[in-house]
């Protein structure tokens, strides 16, 4: 990896840590208001769902009683909730290329200060019995809006819980949901394997943590012990306007089975797989990329196992992943930025890959542990690792791009009524990216945050 590329990576990492927006998780006091239940009924600790909450979601935000349809609600009821997090944080990166009188050298840069997250406007509920919706306009800290989710779901078609259809932009059916993660710090906000892209790789389409645009079939048993889903999406990584290839699709399938673990509670094991194709060739006009004109589709896939294990107050979430990208993506083809029109490499007719090029392959896993002291206090730990097993380009160091990520924190929720949620959130996270420092060594950074997370 060239020094300049490393400098850019390092600088971008720092910028991302300092100003990066936290993923806005979903916890809707609107539901609690509608049904008169506390946050803790549906959330192990909000916003993370427990089994009851997962069942509620799988039923289309319905308790499956006579009060599901909005027509039975008080006319003043409005299914909307707002969430934002003011906080203090400190971000530190150990090797940033800094100019000085003696030239450019690596330095640790640490910054701290008060800040606030983006704003989530969470609206979801039912339009009628067995027709549910979700609309989440989301604002960055700067005030720029985007549509995080927008979908309608036809629930229990033909009176069967096995037939639910959703259309729009939605979160993939990850049983361990990143949208409901309990970790908020800059280095701990994401599940790395949900967004992992190898160094030099240009495939942005395989990120299972990003909301996608498509249609989803989902089915579950009445008690939600067994659940299965399949989604077909445009390969746009959730972006609108078919900005990439107009004939490229991806699919995501997931299934899980819960079982009674006696005094420990109800455990669950499952699997997921995402596979699809996306363009690497963009047609141009006057040298400028024609949006949506992508062809030359190449393939990719990710798959893994999921487990939720409860041991009384202690629980573990385990997610694994094996990932594979076409060698074309692995060498940088397909990377087109529709907002700027930038295209680094175009797979035009006659293009051939460098000798020795292979498909990048990797394995990853994380274990997130929660200790629920009581429904108002939860201790959190996550350890995550991603390891490249095959680099695309010959001569690339085998460990380049490997990730180690560790997060610890606690979340105290003195208020968790059916009207609002308030949490004092504290967290430390540490991230190591192998070989990505400007000098080719490992780049590490850490985050500390303490803030008030609230929704109402």
């Amino acid at each position, binding site marked *: 990896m060239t020094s300049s590329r490393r400098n850019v990576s390092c600088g971008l990492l720092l910028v991302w840590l300092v100003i990066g927006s936290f993923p806005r998780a979903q916890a809707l006091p609107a539901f609690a208001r509608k*049904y*008169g*239940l*506390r946050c*803790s*009924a549906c959330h192990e600790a909000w916003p993370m769902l*427990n*089994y*009851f909450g997962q*069942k509620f979601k799988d039923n289309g935000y319905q*308790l*499956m*009683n*006579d*009060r599901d349809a909005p027509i039975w609600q008080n006319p003043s009821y409005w299914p909307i909730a707002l969430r934002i997090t003011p906080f203090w944080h400190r971000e530190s990166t150990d090797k940033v290329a800094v100019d000085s009188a003696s030239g450019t050298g690596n330095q640790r840069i640490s910054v701290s200060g008060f800040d606030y997250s983006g704003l989530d406007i969470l609206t979801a509920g039912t339009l009628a019995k067995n027709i549910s919706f979700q609309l989440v306009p989301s604002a960055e800290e700067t005030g720029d809006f985007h549509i995080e989710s927008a979908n309608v779901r036809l629930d229990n078609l033909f009176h069967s819980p096995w037939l639910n259809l959703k259309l729009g932009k939605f979160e993939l059916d990850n049983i361990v949901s990143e949208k409901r993660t309990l970790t908020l710090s800059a280095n701990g906000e994401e599940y790395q394997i949900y967004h992992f892209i190898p160094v030099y790789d240009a495939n942005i389409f395989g990120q299972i943590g990003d909301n996608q645009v498509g249609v989803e079939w989902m089915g579950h048993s*009445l*008690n*939600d012990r067994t659940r299965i889903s399949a989604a077909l999406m445009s390969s746009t990584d959730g972006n609108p306007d078919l900005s990439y290839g107009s004939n490229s699709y991806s699919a995501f399938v997931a299934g899980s089975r819960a079982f*009674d*673990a*006696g*005094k420990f*509670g*109800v455990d669950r094991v499952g699997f997921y797989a995402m596979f699809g194709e996306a363009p690497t060739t963009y047609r141009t006009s006057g040298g400028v990329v024609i949006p949506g004109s992508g062809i030359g589709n190449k393939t990719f896939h990710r798959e893994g196992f999921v487990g939720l294990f409860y041991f009384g*107050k202690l629980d573990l979430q385990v997610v694994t992943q094996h990932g594979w990208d076409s060698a074309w993506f692995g060498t940088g083809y397909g990377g087109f930025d529709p907002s700027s029109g930038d295209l680094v490499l175009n797979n035009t007719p006659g293009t051939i890959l460098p000798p020795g090029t292979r498909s990048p392959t990797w394995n990853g896993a994380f274990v997130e542990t929660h200790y*629920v002291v*009581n*429904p108002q206090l939860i201790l959190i730990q996550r350890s995550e690792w991603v390891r490249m097993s095959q680099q695309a380009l010959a001569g690339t160091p085998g460990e380049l791009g490997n990730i180690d990520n560790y997060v610890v924190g606690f979340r105290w929720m003195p208020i968790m*009524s*059916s009207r609002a949620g308030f949490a004092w959130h504290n967290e430390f996270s540490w991230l190591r990216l192998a070989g990505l420092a400007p000098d080719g060594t490992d780049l590490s950074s850490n985050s500390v945050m303490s803030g008030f997370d609230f929704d109402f």
Partner: protein
Amino acid sequence: MGRESLPRWWYVGAAVLGLGLPTWSQLTSMQQHEWLNSPAAVSHIGDLTGKAKRAAMDYRRFCVGCHGELGDGNGENAAWLDPKPRDFTLGVFKCRSTPSGTLPTDEDLYDTIARGLDRSNMPVWSTLNRRQLADLVAWIKHFSPRWQKEKAGAPIPIPAEPEVTPERVKQGREVYGKLQCSKCHGVQGTANGPSASTLTDDANRPIVAYNFTDGSRPKCGEGDRDIYRMFMTGLDGTPMPSYADNIQPEEAWDLVFYLRTFQPPNQYNRREKEIARQLALPPVDPNVLPQ
């Protein structure tokens, strides 16, 4: 205008109230803590033994918002709910397999939690496992002094369900008239009888009769045996009495079959609906006095 001082008794009364109410609450809390360690604070569901102490966290997580810390039905949401959450301290429960006025069995409470109560805010808690539910049953029992002094009633016998015949459906209609069910439930089961608007529960709160025609689930189960049980045990705390002393088991089954004809088609009433269509039974005449 001169200010008149309040009479001395007023201050004494205020002091008694001011000190007494928190003390009463404290005493209740202490008493309940004691009951938590009593033999009554366990449940037996088949081969499973539920223990109240293990349910503290689940009760706090799932139940306390409505039923309150003391189990008195005064949780933070109670003011907004209709019907009101159950007051466990009274030890009075609608859904029982036991005679009216007696305590329910552990299985009755278990079934109620697992099944939920339609037309109320009580959800289906089937996501809790058997042991969690059994523990919660034990926890509920620690709230009321009744469990310290009384044992659960013996479940009423339910004879085997006879075959549905046109005669039985017709007979059921007679029973419906004889018991004057239409006073509350209406002549066609639509909950619009002349007394429907005046119904109140034991706490004098308005309560509605069950509408058989709207497709909602009966509160205490939707099977034939559940319905049989409901009018033979009554729903304690509500105006729905037990008719165990008024009708014979055969008549009770006839009534079950007739009530099924009111309901929209479901998995239980295909035969009854067919018979009702063939017979074209007129609604009961509310003006005919029972024999």
